[in-house]
């Protein structure tokens, strides 16, 4: 009897302890690509922006579904990281639907969420289809270890390998690959993204600088120039943000 009583207490303690370690997870989305040409019409001396052609930008708002639950509609804009959306623990599927899409319609995006941690989903339009109706994705962990403050991650969303010069360091970054470096706050670090050039040595198609404050992290996104009459085959965007404080732990009951 005494032994059984002790075991019950032990199991209860474990359950409470396990529940306390379950922290809410979240996912964010970042669509990369080029805006379509701006079009307007003038009526009564007032300029009105015209709606871009269907498929030339990502859905303006999406709803995240995970199992039976679904989020509120959240805006999705090119080059801007979306608001964080809560997701359940453990692995499983996630689906994104346009805000107006029916619950039983084919989702705009379906992906498998990692088992642990927060993550960022990079989105870009399919090169062959050339439309945002078909979207490619890449999941980037955003846990405090992988994306700690002071980190700089290069991500290649383009469909070609690119050369990277990071200070004196030179390396090749294959499509869908990531590499990470550390950068002290306040330091300006120059970098270049290069593409092979049949006429000679690799040609720099982007030269830039990464700098960040202490407690910030950066993301250097390399993506295919997918707009009208692209000026260069590949574009680069640098996203910098403070590393969010760990969310308050919640006890799941």
């Amino acid at each position, binding site marked *: 009897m005494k032994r059984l009583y002790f075991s019950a207490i032990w199991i209860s303690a474990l359950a409470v302890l396990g529940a306390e370690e379950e922290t809410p997870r979240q996912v964010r989305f970042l669509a990369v690509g*080029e*805006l379509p*040409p701006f*079009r307007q019409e003038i009526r009564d001396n007032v*300029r009105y*922006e015209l709606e871009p052609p269907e498929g030339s930008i990502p859905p303006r708002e999406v709803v995240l579904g995970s199992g039976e639950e679904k989020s509120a509609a959240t805006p999705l804009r090119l080059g*801007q990281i979306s608001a964080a959306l809560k997701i359940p623990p453990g692995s499983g599927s996630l689906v994104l639907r346009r805000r107006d899409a029916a619950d039983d319609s084919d989702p705009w995006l379906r992906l498998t969420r990692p088992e642990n941690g927060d993550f960022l989903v990079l989105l870009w339009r399919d090169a062959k289809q050339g439309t945002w109706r078909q979207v490619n994705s890449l999941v980037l962990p955003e846990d405090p270890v992988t994306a700690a403050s002071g980190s700089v991650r290069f991500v290649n969303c383009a469909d070609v390998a690119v050369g990277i010069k990071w200070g004196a360091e030179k390396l090749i970054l294959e499509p869908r690959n990531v590499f990470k470096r550390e950068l002290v706050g306040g330091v300006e670090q120059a970098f270049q993204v290069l593409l092979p050039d049949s006429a000679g040595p690799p040609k720099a198609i982007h*030269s830039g*600088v990464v700098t960040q404050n202490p407690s910030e992290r950066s993301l250097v996104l390399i993506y295919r120039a997918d707009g009208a009459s692209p000026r260069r085959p590949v574009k680069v965007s640098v996203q910098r943000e403070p590393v969010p404080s760990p969310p308050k732990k919640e006890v799941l009951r």
Partner: protein
Amino acid sequence: MPIQLLSKTAPTPTVIPNVRTREGIRMRWFQEHPSNVGAGALANTAYFDEALLANWNPRASFVVRSPWENIGGGGPWFFGAYTRDLFDQAVSWDEQMPVPRGGRFHGNPFGPPQEGNGRYILFDVPRRETGLVSLGQLQHAKLSELIWHPSYAVGNSLADPRLGTGGFLGLNRTSAISSKKESAKLGGFGSSELGWSNDSQRSNGKEEWASTARSILGEVPEQDNLVYDLSFEVNQKLWDRFYLSSGSVAEKKKFLENPDKNPLPNGRMQLASGVGKAALVEDLTDFHHAASRLMVDGAFNVNSTRVEAWKALLGSTRPAGFGNGNGVPFPRVLAPQEGAWRNGDSPNSDSVWAGYRELDESEVDRLATAIVVEVKKRGPFLSLADFVNRRLAEDETGRMGALQAAIEKAGLNSTLVTGFPLDNRSSLPNYTHPDNLPDATRMEQTLKPGSKAWGAAAYLTQADVLQVIGPVLTARSDSFVIRAYGDKVDSGGNVQARAWCEAVVQRTPEPLVPDESGLNPVLAGQSGDFGRRFIIQSFRWLSPDEI
């Protein structure tokens, strides 16, 4: 559009501003973005194609719309060498980020920063070591504060596209004309040309825009034309009336002591021989008298139709110390920061904007041949300005001067024309502009040069060539070969003896009968005026078989 709220004590913005927050003007790009190009009544025309250094003056202080500019129809509403932007990704935060090179951040005057070159060196200033030795060097001078004038006025000869009224029409004059009589009295800056808005929030009455423009220009349009062919006018005044003796007072003193040992910076300057009295340093340093004491050694007559002679002249910079000596350099600036650029090299290399132009032998040959063609077509040139300037004629010769035409016809800039093309094949279409403009596309597209990169350091211009050969050019010869014949006949008329002789004579600056100043003939242009003194440089008897 998300707005990031920043901490008052430690603001660290991280949200990238939306492109729709961007407003301002900038110089037009060599390749405009599709949002601008595809907008309005002039969508997908060559409206944005401009040669910013050929037909505009980015150094100008006065950026005002003249009546002869093209105006975009339907946004972005702007004109001339500049533009506003519709909200294209090309002008977004990421795309406009300056580019780090060599520890500095660089922009790009002609496109997004990522497409820029390391350096853009466009204008030179005289160096203490050399001073000014050629009138062609004045191409670097900012002679005008008005945006619509050319950047390199002196020595170049492109017709101002504001003169044209379609095809070659309008090239027989040097100033743009008004289409409305009431505006003509105001140099074109009247409301009937500059327009007005029917919207009271944009213009307070019909005259407001025009009177504001005139006010900005100091009311000068009421007395004078401000939109005219600056290159033509300045060349006309300069090349026939002025020359550069070169050298400081000290250098001229030394030159007088020993001309061979201490030549002037322009080594072609020699003391005039055969004139009455010895030159004094006061003569050489006097603005009016220096020319009476100096002569150019080996002056070249621009009316020459000998290809070999032109080749020799053009190739005279071969040993100038630029490059490896195998090419013929025509550097725009005396100390270029990049190396030689030859036609066929990459149009995107740093040498295009910060190097210098070099010709090979075949290019020199083509240029000399093309010059002779132009000389035969346009000559004889009655003065140096006549050679430098375009013809005031409504035909091909009215578009540009002989040298520039020869450069283009020889294809010396073909790589840059192909790399940075400017569509000048047809005039822009007109359209009904809501701001009561009689013609919103008056700047004649077909009179612009064929490349937006006109004026790049590697783009050979007429002024670049004149900068080098200008000091030795003349439109007339001053030395002549004279042959004479004489015979002796007897009383029957029979020739007893014959003789032939030959003299080489040199015209000097000294009048035969000078006026009080000593500079001009006392009877200039009148009966009995024998002009300037000739001296015999050589004389010989000829044998019959030399005749």
